[in-house]
């Protein structure tokens, strides 16, 4: 069954209202709806599953403690609120001295692919994905977070500004810098990547 964005939002709001009244089933449904989104976001930021799982736990513990005070408004997105908590959790963990950023692990064990996709094309996509992720890996934390929130979480520049507590002009600037850097890195790849980056760097 197809669910529109508005329907999903209405359902989420209903679950939040019920959970705030102490409905444990609604809380369970709300968590199941978002746990893997948050887990993957944490995974992208932390780069290993154990830390991502810890940060997901921490995110939901903090979110549930603050849930009675979360204001359901037209412009306030629950997802953005959750992502904000998740990013804050990850950043506090990364700020610890002992924390070391690890290189990207092997691709996910259960990679879902489109059935009609040609094997060559699938391989090309996988290679490109690895190239892109390696390029993202080279970005500094500030730029990496903006890229992840923009292209994984699908947040607007204003929402990213809200999540990271920075001005939206700074978000635009970081995003622009990150894109330039990624295009440069990807342009160093094979011919397909060169074609892909043909737009070049704006001067």
């Amino acid at each position: 069954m197809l669910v529109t964005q508005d329907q999903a939002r209405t359902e989420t709001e209903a679950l939040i209202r019920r959970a705030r009244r102490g409905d444990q089933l609604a809380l369970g449904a709300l968590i199941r709806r978002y746990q893997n989104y948050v887990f993957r976001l944490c995974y992208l930021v932390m780069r290993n599953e154990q830390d991502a799982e810890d940060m997901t736990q921490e995110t939901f513990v903090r979110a549930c403690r603050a849930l009675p005070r979360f204001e359901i408004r037209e412009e306030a997105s629950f997802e953005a609120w959750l992502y904000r908590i998740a990013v804050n959790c990850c950043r506090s963990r990364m700020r610890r001295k002992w924390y070391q950023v690890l290189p990207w692990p092997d691709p996910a064990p259960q990679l879902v692919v489109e059935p009609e996709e040609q094997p060559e094309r699938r391989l090309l996509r996988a290679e490109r994905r690895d190239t892109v992720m390696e390029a993202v890996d080279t970005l500094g934390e500030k730029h990496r977070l903006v890229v992840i929130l923009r292209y994984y979480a699908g947040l607007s520049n204003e929402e990213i500004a809200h999540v990271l507590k920075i001005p939206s002009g700074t978000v635009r600037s970081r995003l622009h810098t990150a894109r330039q850097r990624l295009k440069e890195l990807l342009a160093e790849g094979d011919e397909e990547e060169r074609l892909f980056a043909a737009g070049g760097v704006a001067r």
Partner: protein
Amino acid sequence: MNCELACHLFDEYLEGQLSQYDLRRLERHLHGCPSCAAELRDLPRFERVMRRSLVTSTQGRMLSPEASMRLVQNAQTSLRRGIWSNRALLSLRVVVATAALCLVALGLYFILSDASVSPTLHTTVLAPVKQLVMFDPPPAPSSEPTQAVLTLQIADSSSERRGALSLASGDLSVEPTPLLPGEPFTITLFLHSNVTQPVDRARFDLEVTGPTGYYRFEMKAKGPFPAEGVSVVQITPERLADLSQEKYLISPEEVFSLPGVYVLRVLLYSPVVASTQ
């Protein structure tokens, strides 16, 4: 508009979020800048690749069922705490708001009623401490009230006789006799004047020593007291009331509330003689 600023507006341009002013400026720049135009043209493709790469790199990764179960349990505990702390916060706000409202109402009451702190308030606050220190605790009341016996004693009048007024032993009486505890009474003084001029005011102290403690009432009797005659001064509970309540925080009836022997003593001071016309 330079290239960097133009690039900063690409996202809003593609999302249709630009204001008319920025839209006109950007389009003017794009007409004259093929580099920015090419970058804008390639941006949707770049974004598709980025989105696909980031999403597929995490696709299939999910929390294990055990971790998911643990997450729900922790979240439930956390939510319960959140609900309780939120309720506590709300209650605290209500209490603070009520207290603030009461303070405001009290302030308004004082302002509107023009109430000021009376000087007697200080006496009221301070006196009980002295009172408690000064007196023994009253004994438990007996079921059968016994009669109070009042023994009268007059101060040695020899020293006081040099004044214009004098008082003898028989000049002090209490009615009714015997006096029951808590019963209204009248103390009568017969003041003898031995001067040829009328006396304007007389000042004397009435001391009471009995089972309830020691009390000293400073009293004034307003004349005129006739020359070479006898004047009658009557002291009733009402007359003692102001003094006793203000000074000792006790009613005159309570001064004689316990059965026993009470010693009354009157000390006369030099009277004020009216000036000769």
